[in-house]
């Protein structure tokens, strides 16, 4: 177990985790150890996918990196700065729609600028530019409920991009979309990622998604979530997801995950059967 919290890392690294852990409701009867011993370095511009069974704490880690929750163990840095509070440098995109329903699309996208008190012209210009990048400039004046699920997530991406983040944190952003839309959104995300130069940390439980997107796949164990292994993927992009290489990656990741799911099942059975 790493208790060494001294920052042995390059200050250029987008995200650095040292001995990070999280216990929810610590000190109470409902205390739940969600995450333990996370040591991870993410390079600038890297695409890292967190893969693991549901409830393994991978989303928790994302919230810790975003600064929305405090780690109960260890420390995190982003570009040399200790992560203590949320920052516009690290934008989080959620699974469910998180657009403000009472604002138009462009107002949603420029929300962060309005927080800083930017003028309307400036906000509209930035919003138009960000929406251009996600191919939704024509929908600027619509309201979120007029858009499809995929469009809404693209707007959420545009809103994150408008902040010019160095790290994009994505919590199963395409999980609520149908398979075809999801495949298209993955291509779209890769384009956005390439253009923005930001690091992406992407949470999913879909193996296909991990193979399609990641530079590195971080596979999690469950209860508490630990890093089981990190699988690098050096397939060139655009990737042929039907290639032999992709297939063998899928098999490898499936095997890694199956152990975890089996373990989780065994634990649940132990729960269910009275001693």
């Amino acid at each position, binding site marked *: 177990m790493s208790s060494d919290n001294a920052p042995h890392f390059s200050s250029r690294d987008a995200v650095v985790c040292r001995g990070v852990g999280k216990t929810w409701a610590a000190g109470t009867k409902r205390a739940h150890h969600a995450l333990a011993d996370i040591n991870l370095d993410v390079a600038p511009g890297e695409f890292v996918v967190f893969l693991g069974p549901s409830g393994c704490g991978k989303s928790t880690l994302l919230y810790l990196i975003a600064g929305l929750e405090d780690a109960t163990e260890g420390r995190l840095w982003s570009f040399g700065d200790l992560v203590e509070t*949320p920052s516009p440098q690290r934008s989080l995109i959620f699974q469910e729609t998180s657009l403000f*329903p009472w604002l138009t699309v462009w107002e949603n996208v420029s929300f962060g600028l309005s927080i800083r008190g930017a003028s309307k012209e400036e906000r509209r210009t930035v919003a138009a530019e960000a929406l251009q990048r996600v191919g939704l400039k024509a929908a600027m004046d619509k309201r979120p*409920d007029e858009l499809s699920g995929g469009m809404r997530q693209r707007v959420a991406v545009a809103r994150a991009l408008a902040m010019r983040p160095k790290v994009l944190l994505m919590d199963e952003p395409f999980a609520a979309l149908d398979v075809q839309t999801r495949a298209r959104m993955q291509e779209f995300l890769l384009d956005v990622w390439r253009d923005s130069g930001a690091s992406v940390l992407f949470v999913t439980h879909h193996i296909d998604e991990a193979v399609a997107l990641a530079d590195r796949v971080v596979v999690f164990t469950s209860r508490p979530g630990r890093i089981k292994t990190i699988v690098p993927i050096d397939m060139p992009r655009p990737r042929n997801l039907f290639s032999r290489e992709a297939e063998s990656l899928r098999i490898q990741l499936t095997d890694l995950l199956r152990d975890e799911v089996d373990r989780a099942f065994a634990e649940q059975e132990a729960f269910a059967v009275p001693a």
Partner: protein
Amino acid sequence: MAVVARDGEPGVAAAASRPAAASRLMASMAGLDWLARIWWALLSISLFAGLWELCWALGWADEKLLPPPHIFLDNIAEQGRYFNTATRWQVGQSMTEGPSAFESVLITGAATTARVFVGLIIASVLAIGVGVLIRYYRFFDRLVLPTITLLSPVSPIAWLPVAIFLFGIGNAPAIFMVVVALFFHMVLATINQIDTVNTNLINVARTMGASKAQIYSRVIVPAILPGMLQVLRMNLFGAWMVVLVAESTGVGYGMGQVIMLARNTFNPSLVFFTIAVIGVLGFTFDWLLRLAQRRILYWLPDTAERLRVL
């Protein structure tokens, strides 16, 4: 980009004209919907009145005690004499002077409506303000919430003497009664609404560097508006009930006072006539509030249809 085709008018496919065409279509549909709703409302009331009349015709309902609609609505001029009694009974004023019967009903109704309206506004502003402050400042929460919870179950009737002690007679005690009857519940409802705001929305604002004040003003307050208007609507009826109690104790004039008068003079016709007027006023008020709700909450889809398919 997929935009749902709303109406297939050729030549207006340009994005700019689409909202106009859609709103025209929706306006025409809303018009029909409106007619149908009036039709059903009339049918509903007729059915109720019809049953009552039937009971009267069969001799089950004594017209001295339960006069059916055709009797208590028969002589509006006669009933109207009892309205706006404050001006009519002023010293030196004869029974034939002053506003006409119809005007009296209008004045009395308007006076009661105004009390409900003012009370409702004051109660909502206070309750939302206090509710937000309670969640905003932990210290305020600890200091104030126990008392508010303690006073919440107290019946408005119990506040009646207090209203009179504090404000004597006139508009003030009636408005006070409305405010006090709604305020505590609405504070608790506000807190409940704040607690159920989607955490993602708050987190988005946090990652964008919003301050606590900005999160409250830009996210939480707009997010609780739909729920608060719903709460307001539910409390509207409460306000109508309370205002009658308050008015029955010497406000001067108002629907509550007419009811008391009818009770004291054993005039069932006047009771039912007043109830009918109150019903119409309350119904109209509710309808206006729903209209305002749709205007203010433009972003909410109409969800009533969702249950119809079951």
